[in-house]
């Protein structure tokens, strides 16, 4: 018996090894990221509709949940994923996110889904493994081929029925006029009749045209979240606010708080945007302030400046004034220098290619780490902050970066973050970090070794290359391409980097296994230098 067990073990290990060679985005499943589902009793119309779509197999194979920013798409996607996981029907899920490079790359979607499907379905795994063995580069092919070979063929040979969830499709970088993923789905979905797709996204034009492709029109059920009866949404938002605020009141021992008028006012200001309610609760729940004082601040906000005669005001305006007043309450200094530091800190959080912990942000923008922690704490109702200061910091919802980097929405110039200027600051930070931190043979690798021969390569990388340096080495060119204006300081920093640290950078990139990305970076550098030469005044 033993040899057989050994064989099984060896087989199992080999299978895992092959699967792990397939590139994929980490943390894209529904269970990562600490999202919460819908509060019980809210969003019932949409959830009922989705439930009947899930249960009936004659229904269209695709369900498109479409809604404006902040209407609660991801929360609903989270709830749906949790249910169908509990029913055993969830095959795979991919929650796209602009905050992470891999989770905003279309080319990671199908390989990641395939990886999850392989863990779930035995037959799918065998089909996928034989494919990967014969064609290890399939994850680098075109989207059509990826979907065909990684998803459709193995699913057909495994003959399983399952549901696949893709959340926030609009957060992937995509230059097609009609969403690339959707046109691929349109062509292939007929070949896997037992599989359903649940997709959410903002009604951006390319996604809308994608769903209008003739082949998709007939096979898609559409639910438009922002067209739900406003009364229904209002009562959902009221339920949510009451629930969250009564919990807060109990925790902080407040009695008869908040009053019904206050809740009514908040509901009408939310104007159908769940994110307004979520942001308000987050703002009230501050450890350093009394919730009732903070609620007064919001209640006292001037009514929105919507043109007269309009009964329902523009939801974006109310959200913008909420964000502005949260920022104004958090930072009340007179000193203009403080605001430039605040902008650097928050700007880094919203524009980094991948999120970083506060200490790394401090190094990158050249501020005292204690100061950065202070600013982040002050702005915490707008951020996803952990108790643990080693954890990366993100904004709590993508409507916040949209707001603060748009000068027509964020009208308080003390807080407006100009993307070009911020990228300039970040690329300078990256170059400074690399010029200071890189040196020849930083990892003390023995001469004439291949990377694969160094057994503890990963530990060496972790020990000797700080998170900041790693980020700088991998992402400086992403920021470089976004710069604008006076770049002479960047040019002089680049010169030091190229003349003294270039090979040390290549070493690090080689040890991390990112040489492919480095060629992209150098190509960008060539293009950027051409621009600078043509327009020296830039």
């Amino acid at each position, binding site marked *: 018996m033993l040899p057989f067990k050994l064989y099984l073990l060896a087989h199992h290990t080999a299978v895992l090894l092959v699967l792990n060679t397939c590139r994929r985005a980490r943390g894209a499943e529904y269970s990562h990221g600490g999202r919460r589902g819908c509060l019980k009793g809210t969003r019932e119309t949409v959830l009922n509709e989705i439930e009947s779509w899930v249960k009936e197999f004659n229904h269209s194979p695709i369900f498109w949940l479409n809604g404006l920013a902040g209407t609660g798409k991801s929360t609903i996607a989270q709830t749906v994923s949790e249910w169908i996981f509990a029913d055993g029907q969830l095959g795979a899920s991919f929650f796209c996110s602009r905050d992470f490079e891999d989770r905003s790359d279309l080319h990671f979607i199908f390989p990641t889904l395939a990886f999850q499907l392989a863990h779930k379905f035995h037959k799918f795994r065998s089909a996928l493994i034989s494919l990967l063995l014969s064609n290890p580069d399939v994850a680098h092919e*075109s989207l059509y081929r990826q979907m065909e070979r990684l998803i459709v063929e193995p699913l057909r040979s495994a003959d399983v029925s399952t549901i696949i969830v893709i959340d926030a499709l609009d957060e992937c970088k995509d230059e097609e006029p009609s969403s690339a993923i959707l046109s691929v789905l349109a062509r292939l979905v007929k070949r896997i009749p037992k599989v359903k797709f649940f997709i959410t996204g903002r009604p951006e034009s390319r996604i809308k045209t994608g769903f209008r492709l003739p082949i998709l029109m007939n096979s898609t059920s559409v639910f438009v979240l922002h067209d739900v009866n406003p009364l229904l949404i209002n009562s959902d938002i009221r339920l949510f606010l009451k629930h969250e605020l009564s919990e807060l009141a109990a925790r902080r021992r407040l009695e008869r708080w908040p009053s019904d008028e206050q809740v009514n006012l908040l509901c009408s200001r939310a104007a159908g945007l769940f994110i307004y309610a979520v942001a308000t609760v987050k703002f009230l729940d501050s450890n350093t302030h009394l919730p009732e004082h903070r609620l007064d601040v919001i209640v006292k906000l001037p009514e929105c400046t919507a043109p007269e005669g309009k009964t329902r005001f523009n939801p974006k305006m109310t959200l913008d004034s909420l964000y502005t007043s949260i920022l104004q309450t958090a930072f009340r200094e007179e000193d203009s220098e403080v605001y430039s530091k605040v902008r650097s800190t928050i700007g880094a959080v919203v524009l980094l290619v991948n999120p970083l912990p506060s200490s790394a942000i401090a190094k990158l923008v050249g501020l005292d780490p204690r100061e950065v922690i202070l600013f982040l704490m002050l702005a915490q109702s707008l951020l996803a902050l952990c108790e643990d200061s080693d954890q990366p910091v993100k904004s709590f919802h993508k409507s916040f970066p949209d707001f603060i980097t748009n000068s027509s929405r964020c009208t308080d110039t003390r807080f407006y973050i100009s993307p070009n200027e911020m990228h300039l600051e970040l690329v300078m930070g990256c170059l400074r970090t690399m010029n200071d931190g890189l040196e020849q043979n930083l990892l003390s690798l023995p*001469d004439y070794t291949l990377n694969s021969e160094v057994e503890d390569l990963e530990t060496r990388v972790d020990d000797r290359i700080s998170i900041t340096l790693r980020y700088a080495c991998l992402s400086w060119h992403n920021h470089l391409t976004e710069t604008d204006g006076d770049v002479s300081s960047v040019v002089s920093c680049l*010169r030091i980097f190229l*003349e003294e640290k270039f090979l040390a950078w290549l*070493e690090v990139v080689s040890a991390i296994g990112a040489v492919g990305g480095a060629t992209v970076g150098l*190509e960008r*550098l060539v293009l950027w230098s051409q621009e600078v*030469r043509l327009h020296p005044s830039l």
Partner: protein
Amino acid sequence: MDQVAKSEQLLDTAKDYFRFVIKFFEVIKVSATHIYHSALELCPTSSIIRKLYYHRRITRLPKVVIGTPESWARNIAISHNDDYNGPCIWSPCGRFVAVQTRRAVEIRNQLTLELITILQLTKLIRDLAGPLAYSPDGRSIACASDTAIIIWDIQTGGVAKGIKRRAHTTSHWGQGPKYPLGTW
């Protein structure tokens, strides 16, 4: 040094380093130390990277005395494939090239020749004969063969449109055996 000269120099250096990384891509990928052992020793004598970094090479092997190229080869990247069959065209944006093989069309990065997408043939077209043409917006590629016309959508790699040609209708289609597509 004035601003213009500085930016000229930056561009030259960037191009030179880019060639270095492309030329020694495989070496750098598998070994960080061989950047100093092999890549530096073998890079062209006139290259900027050699001027700035050659003194940092680490080698216990005999020094290469003769045979190092003098400058970067004119072709900065080469892609070998016995199947290449037919013309190679530039994309309208100038960043990609499309090239025919017997069974597919490959889209490659024009600088590194890294493979970006393969456009596969379908039942409509089993062999590629005619020349390729990019659409003016660079999103699609068209090709004709003896039996059909086909248009691929580049990003998805799928066939956007295809028409099968009936036999003996050459006169409507093009002239003679080459079936020139002309321009878009």
